[in-house]
């Protein structure tokens, strides 16, 4: 069948009108309201799942989830002045440190005056069935296995990532727990310049040099960066958060409660423990980190232009749907959640936190 030139022209005209109509309809369509959620890298998987379910319940909302190191998450609000509607970090102590005394420009208000602790985690070792000695490693001999010259060990850079400096804390706690004073150096190797550990009256200070090089260690900038090294078999074991290992299908060796920082059990071993970095990465952050249990906290920056929607999202996170999603994504929730300053919480959130 052949078409006349006129018919071809008419078909072309109809197509052009269709395209134009599509463009016009697209332009005039209802625009979704965007909610910007900044979260710690290790929360990426559960928060993406939260965003999907929140959007399903709120069809007019587009939740944009962005992951960074926890300090960077806060800096995006307080120093880079990006719109951040909700922020969630892997170390609750950073919120008061960086937001409670930092004023929103042009106002007398601080960036935040409350946080809610909503999830926890624990530090351990991620590995695969192909990792050397995978069939014999356990929570009693792990440091002996990692000390073997052919066992490749990785951690995220303690200068940049909380799981990195927490791995150093875990190795120091292991020395005390197992009564073996060489674990720290045996597992982490001799770095040059050295990482030093000093003890005064039961309080330990681990000092990390400006540049970190150890022939025994593979060091990556983030806990997520460790995944490819483990999956590819380039390293055998990596210090990692349990949630991250499980979310990516890796095997995970749990360490004893006194070492894994999932609770305050470490206090039976030390009066105090901190990591001090000789490299100050951020002008606004004094580079010293106290040993604290791993607790995730969420807050809403004072200057969000979408306060109502932000509260709705946090309500969703702390409510039964959020708790279910966290559990499904291997991120243990703290239940019930609790706040440092319950009186200052938005009223909609108060019923969802412990008295």
């Amino acid at each position, binding site marked *: 069948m052949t078409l006349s030139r006129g018919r071809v*022209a008419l078909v*072309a005209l109809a197509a052009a009108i269709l395209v134009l109509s599509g463009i016009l309809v697209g332009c005039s369509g209802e625009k979704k309201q965007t909610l910007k959620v900044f979260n710690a890298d290790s929360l990426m998987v559960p928060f993406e799942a939260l965003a999907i379910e929140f959007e399903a319940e709120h069809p007019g909302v587009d939740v944009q989830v962005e*992951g960074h190191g926890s300090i960077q998450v806060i800096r995006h609000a307080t120093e880079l002045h990006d719109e951040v509607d909700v922020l969630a970090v892997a170390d609750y102590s950073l919120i008061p440190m960086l937001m409670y005394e930092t004023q929103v420009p042009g106002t007398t208000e601080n960036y935040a005056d409350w946080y809610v602790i909503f999830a926890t985690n624990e530090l351990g070792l991620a590995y695969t069935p192909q990792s050397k000695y995978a069939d014999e490693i356990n929570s009693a001999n792990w440091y002996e296995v990692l000390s073997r010259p052919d066992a490749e060990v990785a951690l995220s850079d303690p200068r940049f990532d909380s799981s990195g400096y927490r791995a150093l804390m875990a190795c120091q706690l292991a020395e005390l727990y197992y009564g073996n004073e060489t674990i720290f150096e045996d597992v982490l190797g001799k*770095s040059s310049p050295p990482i*030093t550990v000093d003890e005064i009256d039961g309080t330990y200070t681990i000092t990390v040099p400006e540049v970190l090089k150890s022939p025994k260690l593979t060091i990556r900038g983030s806990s997520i960066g460790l995944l*490819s090294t483990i999956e590819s078999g380039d390293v055998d074991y990596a210090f990692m958060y349990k949630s991250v290992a499980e979310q990516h299908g890796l095997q995970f060796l749990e360490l004893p409660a006194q070492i894994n920082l999932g609770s305050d059990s470490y206090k039976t071993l030390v009066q105090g423990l901190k990591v001090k970095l000789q490299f100050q990465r951020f002008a606004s952050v004094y580079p010293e980190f106290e040993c604290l249990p791993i607790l995730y906290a969420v807050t809403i920056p004072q200057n969000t232009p979408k306060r109502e929607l932000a509260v709705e999202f946090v309500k969703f996170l702390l409510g039964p749907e959020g708790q279910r999603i966290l559990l499904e994504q291997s991120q243990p929730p703290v239940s019930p959640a609790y706040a440092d300053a319950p009186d200052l919480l938005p009223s909609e959130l108060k019923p969802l936190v412990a008295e």
Partner: protein
Amino acid sequence: MQTERSNKIRRVVPSFIIIFGLLLIIASVVVYTQPWDKGASEEVIEGNITLIGVNYEQKVLSYDEIKALPYYEGDGGFFTTVGVINGPFRVRGVLITDLCELVGGVTPVDVVFVSAEDGYSMVFSYEQIMGEFDTYDPETMRIVPHGEQKLLLAYEIDGKPFRKEDGRPFRLALVGTDRLLVEGHNWVKWVVKIEVMPIKTADNTAGTGA
């Protein structure tokens, strides 16, 4: 009547299609040439870099002075802490080693601090200043060996100055011959100061070295 209308359509429709086609061509040309970006490459870009040597020798160079120095051009990119890949890009800039030379040079017992306008900083070992980084294949994200790699104070990306949000006027970049990636924290944005310092050793030697 029918024939008359058909004739009219036959006359009008081709004209309409020609006009529509012409508009499409013009729109394509406009999108392709991006005339709105021309202003960016022609506008005056301001910004200074302060260089400080290991003996406190100091120099301040303007954007134009940096651009007048010999440049290196290569390919490279980075990935963020959550694995988002950026690049590889074609990047132009001045070698960090050349800038260090202007204030006395850098040796294996030094480190180089790079500071940004927003209060962020990074420290690089001598080996890193020489281009020694772990490099990743953009396809597999596995570490792969690399050929020539150079650490630059970059001012152009894919033939244009950086946009403000990407680090304008200066950003660090690790590029070379192999179009590979490095970790994103090395691509420091909004660089304002490069300082060579002797490497610190631990203050307290009583501790357990590791």
